[in-house]
């Protein structure tokens, strides 16, 4: 019988065992294909040039992240598969096959798996691509026309990337098989040395890990100016190192200490599962650390998406307080402009204000000239009333000003210091800052300061005033009907019209579903990594559980031990993730000036639910794979 035939028979016979592998591989292909397809779709064109460019950059970043992710995932999946197959393949050694031939057999088999996964991934990818785009567009609240389309280049690209990554690991497995000895392949029961790790080293690692982690948390929530970005980066690095050291030091130390306290250990099933965890720890701690970091990323990604979405909405609302903002040299033109607009549109509300444009500078950097727009306090109060906005500003003294600021998508400066300004050698003390959009879009473009009425009158004698007339119309779809009339009005010196349809931040909205998506992918990955690890480990436990059953340890006791062991396996990364995510989300909340605690809690809750499901499945499958329910013992 030739190799191809043999491998095909193998493949067919054990297809059931491959299902989980194929599904997870197909899943990664499906995701990457969908992003490639999205990038080529006509949805992009209809978003306008700048938006589509920005979204394409976002998608490219996502694809890069997903490719890295696919790389590790395939590494992991094939590795798990290889160790499992290695034992079965050992049989062929007795059939007289050489390592080379066994390696080739493995290659052929895994290539078949890979091919099936690829076809399934692309196939299902095409099937759901429409749904995927639709969901993405719906969640991001972008208005585009959808049409069914499949990009050939998306198929080729996703297929090619997957193929390259997959072949790397197929080849790695081949090398591994060719170079491994017969003994390795037949029995993976090598002596397990170094069960217990050196306590001093563990202790040092633990102390170092805790310190680094705390330092990371500190940098994450530390408020600051321009150094915030560097702090955030530092925090990321520190938290990752800290998590590694914690799993490599602190956690084994805790378990070992518990295990050496025999009065504690010899109760319930503790002897079984605590020793088991200690034994596994040295081999598995990297996996747990990766999973923890992956989950922190997931929660942070989700929080970023939600925050971006909220900020965008806020900025959108900020800009759209008025539809028209008309400038004029003359005052008291409210009624005239109202008349002009009402020819075609209904006015929802309107306001009016007088402003002075002056040269000035910030008190700290006097050599840098800025243009400030000053407005008098009492008029601002009136404007707030007319435009139905809150007004909680203190009356400024003659040498004081109020900063009328605006919303940012993301601000790296997390300290909230007020900067004094200087106009004509007079320093004004900034007493307050507000982000209420009194002047809507204009407030975003110009640095407004509110001064006392007396001071305004004094400054007015040297500069000329400009008058701003603001209107919000009922039906913003009709906004172009009135623009010409306004512009042709003799006293109109300038017009700003704000079209809610024409939002240059639309691409950021796209981030929202993408982030939700990344969250789900990361969570799915972390759950399945632990799951696969346990799945694989369980086979190695078979012999141990056989001994235990022989000496009369009942199924119930063994299962209770497994339950505790697996519970701890899932819960420790989960807890560490929950703690760490609090800090990372908090840092993000500072930068985005959004309250993200509820998002944090929600995402941790989602992970908890997913992990409970994984845990339940793991217990059932672990018990099965470890042969706890088997009757035969001899």
């Amino acid at each position, binding site marked *: 019988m030739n190799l191809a035939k043999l491998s095909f028979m193998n493949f067919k016979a054990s297809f059931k065992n491959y299902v989980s592998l194929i599904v997870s591989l197909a899943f990664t292909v499906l995701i990457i294909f969908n992003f490639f397809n999205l990038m080529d779709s006509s949805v992009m064109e209809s978003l306008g040039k700048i938006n589509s460019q920005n979204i394409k950059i976002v998608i490219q970043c996502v694809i890069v992240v997903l490719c890295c992710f696919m790389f590790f995932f395939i590494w992991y999946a094939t590795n798990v598969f290889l160790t499992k197959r290695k034992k079965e393949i050992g049989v062929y050694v007795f059939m007289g096959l050489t390592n080379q031939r066994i390696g080739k057999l493995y290659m052929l088999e895994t290539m078949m798996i890979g091919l099936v996964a690829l076809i399934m991934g692309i196939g299902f990818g095409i099937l759901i691509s429409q749904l995927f785009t639709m969901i993405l567009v719906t969640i991001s609240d972008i208005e585009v026309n959808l049409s069914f389309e499949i990009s050939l280049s998306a198929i080729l690209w996703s297929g090619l990337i997957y193929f390259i990554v997959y072949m790397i690991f197929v080849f790695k497995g081949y090398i591994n098989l060719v170079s491994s000895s017969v003994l390795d392949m037949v029995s993976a029961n090598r002596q397990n040395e170094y069960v217990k790790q050196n306590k001093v080293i563990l202790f040092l690692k633990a102390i170092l890990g805790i310190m680094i982690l705390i330092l990371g948390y500190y940098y994450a929530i530390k408020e600051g100016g321009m150094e915030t970005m560097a702090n955030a980066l530092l925090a990321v690095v520190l938290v990752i190192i800290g998590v590694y050291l914690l799993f490599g030091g602190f956690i084994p130390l805790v378990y070992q200490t518990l295990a050496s306290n025999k009065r504690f*250990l*010899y*109760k319930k099933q*503790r*002897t079984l599962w605590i020793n088991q965890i200690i*034994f596994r720890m040295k081999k598995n701690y990297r996996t747990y650390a990766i999973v923890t970091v992956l989950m922190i990323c997931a929660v942070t990604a989700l929080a970023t998406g939600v925050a971006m979405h909220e900020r965008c909405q806020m900025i959108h609302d900020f800009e759209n307080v008025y539809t028209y903002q008309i400038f004029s040299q003359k005052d008291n033109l409210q009624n005239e402009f109202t008349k002009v607009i009402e020819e075609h549109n209904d006015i929802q509300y309107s306001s009016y204000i007088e402003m002075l444009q002056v040269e000035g500078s910030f008190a700290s950097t006097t050599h840098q000239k800025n243009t400030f727009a000053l407005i008098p306090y009492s008029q601002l109060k009136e404007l707030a009333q007319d435009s139905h906005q809150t007004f909680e500003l203190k009356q400024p003294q003659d040498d004081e000003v109020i900063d009328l600021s605006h919303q940012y998508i993301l601000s790296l400066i997390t300290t909230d210091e007020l900067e004094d300004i200087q106009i004509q050698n007079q320093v004004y003390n900034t007493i307050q800052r507000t982000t209420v959009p009194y002047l809507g879009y204009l407030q975003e473009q110009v640095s407004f300061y509110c001064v006392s009425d007396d001071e305004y009158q004094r400054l007015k004698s040297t500069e000329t005033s400009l008058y701003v007339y603001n209107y919000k119309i009922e039906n913003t779809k009709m906004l172009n009907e009135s623009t010409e009339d306004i512009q042709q009005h003799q006293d109109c010196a300038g017009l700003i019209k704000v079209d809610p349809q024409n939002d240059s931040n639309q691409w950021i909205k796209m981030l929202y579903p993408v982030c939700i998506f990344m969250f789900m992918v990361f969570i799915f990955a972390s759950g399945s990594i632990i799951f696969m690890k346990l799945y694989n480990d369980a086979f190695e436990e078979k012999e141990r559980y056989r001994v235990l059953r022989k*000496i009369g340890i009942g199924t119930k006791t063994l299962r209770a031990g497994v339950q505790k062991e697996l519970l701890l396996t899932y819960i420790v990364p989960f807890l560490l993730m929950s703690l760490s995510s609090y800090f990372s989300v908090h840092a993000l909340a500072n930068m985005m000036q959004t309250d993200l605690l509820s998002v944090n809690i929600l995402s941790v809750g989602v992970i908890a639910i997913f992990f409970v499901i994984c845990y339940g499945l793991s217990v059932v499958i672990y018990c099965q794979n470890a042969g706890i329910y088997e009757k035969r013992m*001899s």
Partner: protein
Amino acid sequence: MDKKKVVEIKGLVKNYGTRGFQTRVLKGIDLTIYENDFIAIMGPSGSGKTTLLNILSTIDKPTQGTVLLDGKDVTKLKNEELSQIRRDKIGFIFQDYNLLDTMTLQDNIALPLSLNGVSSQVCISKCQTLAQIFGLKEHLKKYPYQLSGGQKQRGATCRALISEPEIIFADEPTGALDSKSSRDLLERLKMVNDEGKATILMVTHDALSASYAKDVYILSDGMVKCRLTRGDSRKEFYDRIIDMQVSMGSDFS
């Protein structure tokens, strides 16, 4: 005799293989084990010693016949009950030790007791006592891979004894040991038995090991061929076993 019967075997038959291709390994065995017995079962390789022991220790089921353990017919019990019997009434010593490599010797010894819900204080003190008897005091904190074969087997014996079972089943306990370690283990087993602390059924193909027992049954061709009982001297008993082996002419290995 007013001694308590621990195990009573009647007409035990065991077939292997599927219908049509069956081989009868045990061909009707009757045997009674009383409290504080130390019985060795000898026989050539393939004579069914392990099969017999597996059936007695409820790991395997007989084709015919009954096995009464402490008055209960174990061939008719469900799995859960069998586990319970194995846990509470039987102690095991295997040829390949079967200590768990994930835990220290002390944890290995205390394992059956601690999983039985016995207070941890009792587990610790019993473990200490047994370790003292078997000369393992200094090795309790070590892992199996750090111990010699003899130490491992003595540890396994401690594990078998810790729950004070009705009977200890030992399948070639010295099979993987050098002669010094073998003697060391057997001396201690004999001592425990002499002190009235254990009833032992041991399977072996080695005459020297068998000579530590009180009674030796020779198993051949699936049946008990004869029974030898020790007198005062172990040396003289050993010679008698060898003579018997020679007279039977079978290859004991």
